[in-house]
């Protein structure tokens, strides 16, 4: 069944359109004045102004490797992150730690660790899956480069971004 929509009966002032026009002009003018008097600010002038200080704790920026407080790399080259990575941005070449090494207990370490930042989707699955808490998403968001090669972060670069993270990690524990 068809529904009959009752059209509202307009007054003369509404029909002649001019009061509505004035009202509309007043609204837009109020917005313009508010912006001009800097009462309201919406846009951030990006390269000069940044929101780094307001960034939330859980922000997901560039993934990076971390070392512990003694300068040892946490990554044991288990390659879980490489397998979970949805866009397959991570490439790891594992390496055995020689038997005479003091930390030979851990057995493996990454020889090469590359993250292709063109492919990375900043999903944070690598961080989630890492059993050794070696890879973290940092707050770096302006990852730029002038070539594809430059956009591939190698191990050195990843440790540079990652820095040091303190806290107990079981793999170094001699008693376990």
């Amino acid at each position, binding site marked *: 069944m068809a529904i009959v929509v009752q059209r509202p009966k307009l007054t003369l002032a509404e029909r002649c359109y*001019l009061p509505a*026009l004035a009202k*509309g*002009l007043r*609204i*837009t*003018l109020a*917005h*313009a004045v*508010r*912006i*001009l008097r800097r009462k*309201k600010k*919406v*846009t951030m*002038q990006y390269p000069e102004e940044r929101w780094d200080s307001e960034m939330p704790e859980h922000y997901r920026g560039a993934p990076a490797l971390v070392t512990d407080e003694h300068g040892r790399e946490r990554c044991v080259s288990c390659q879980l992150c490489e397998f979970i990575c949805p866009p397959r941005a991570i490439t790891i070449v594992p390496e055995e730690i020689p038997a005479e090494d003091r930390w030979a207990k851990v057995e493996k370490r990454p020889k090469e660790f590359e993250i292709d930042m063109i492919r990375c989707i900043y999903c944070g699955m690598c961080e989630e899956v890492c059993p050794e808490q070696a890879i973290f998403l940092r707050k770096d968001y302006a990852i730029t480069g002038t070539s594809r090669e430059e956009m591939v972060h190698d191990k050195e670069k990843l440790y540079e971004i990652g820095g040091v993270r303190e806290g107990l990690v079981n793999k170094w524990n001699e008693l376990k």
Partner: protein
Amino acid sequence: MELTDLIISAAKIGGLIFAVILPMVAYSVWAERRVSAIIQDRVGPNRVGVPFTKIGLAGLGQPIADGIKFLLKEDFTPGHVNKFYYWLAPALTMVPALLTCAVLPFGSELFGEKMVIADLSVGPLFIFAIASLSVYGIVLAGWASNSKYPFLGGVRSSSQMISYEIALGLSLVPVLLIFGELNLGAIVREQSENGWLLLPLWGEGAIWNGGVDRLLLLFPALIAFVVFTTSIFAETNRLPFDLPECETELVAGYHTEYSSMKFALFFLGEYAAMIIGSGLIVTLFFGGWSLPFGWDAMLMGDATEVPWWLGLIHIGTFFAKVTGFILFFIWVRWTLPRFRYDQLMKLGWIVFFELALLNVFITAGILILTRSN
């Protein structure tokens, strides 16, 4: 005509068109973008300044960058168009807009020379005759593009022009009745001495100096102003009457198939028409180059000829008023939604046409009552 006259005319044309109107066109595009931005709580183009430096100049370099971009872009002519008319159409929209400023008095006098390119005694008629030509550009663009959206845009444009041109012409009849004059320069001088049409507060137009007729005529003048301004909006194809372009329905309307500088000519033609329209409104209703409250006469003192500094002030006053109106045009554009097509037709034929016609009789009646003795 002597050689000096020719040189003076050429200087006026060069000075007005190339040094003032064309930069004004470019910068009104910039103003449009900045004003629309602040109305919508944004920032707008504020970066482009001097190249290779950090000098920003609040984005004032943007129009120049845009101009260079338009010139360097590929000028693509689709294979299915009618080449001759396709090339003619952009010029036909830009040229009439620039031609009409020939009769606009943009200043009083400078070194004894009248600040108007052609001091015709049929000013408004000349403007109507030339300005209605600009519709041919749009119609030809729509037709020659040989594609459905430009065609619809062209058709809409022609019917819109026809319905608004009548109201445009008729709304001016009361103004011409009041001044009894068709020379725009003389109209402005009259307003300078006896009060602007919409602000009769000095000279013989003031109520305390016996200007009862001007007070009564304020009502028809206001109607004429509203009808004329609205018709100018329709004439320049600007929102709320930009149906020939109408992005949401017609892609880009009549200039869908155009690119590069040919598109820019349509684009700039619209802004040039807006500037000339503002100039015409200012000249007829707000005293053109004259200062308010009879300051012209005060500053003139006993001098018989307009001193050069006053001439410069007059030119500045005219362009200040025009700039104010351009800002008003922009403000309206970013406030009102587009009219539906039948609403537009209704407004043109049923409201404005009758209102303008009625206004002629009201004005004539008031004039008979107050000035017949």
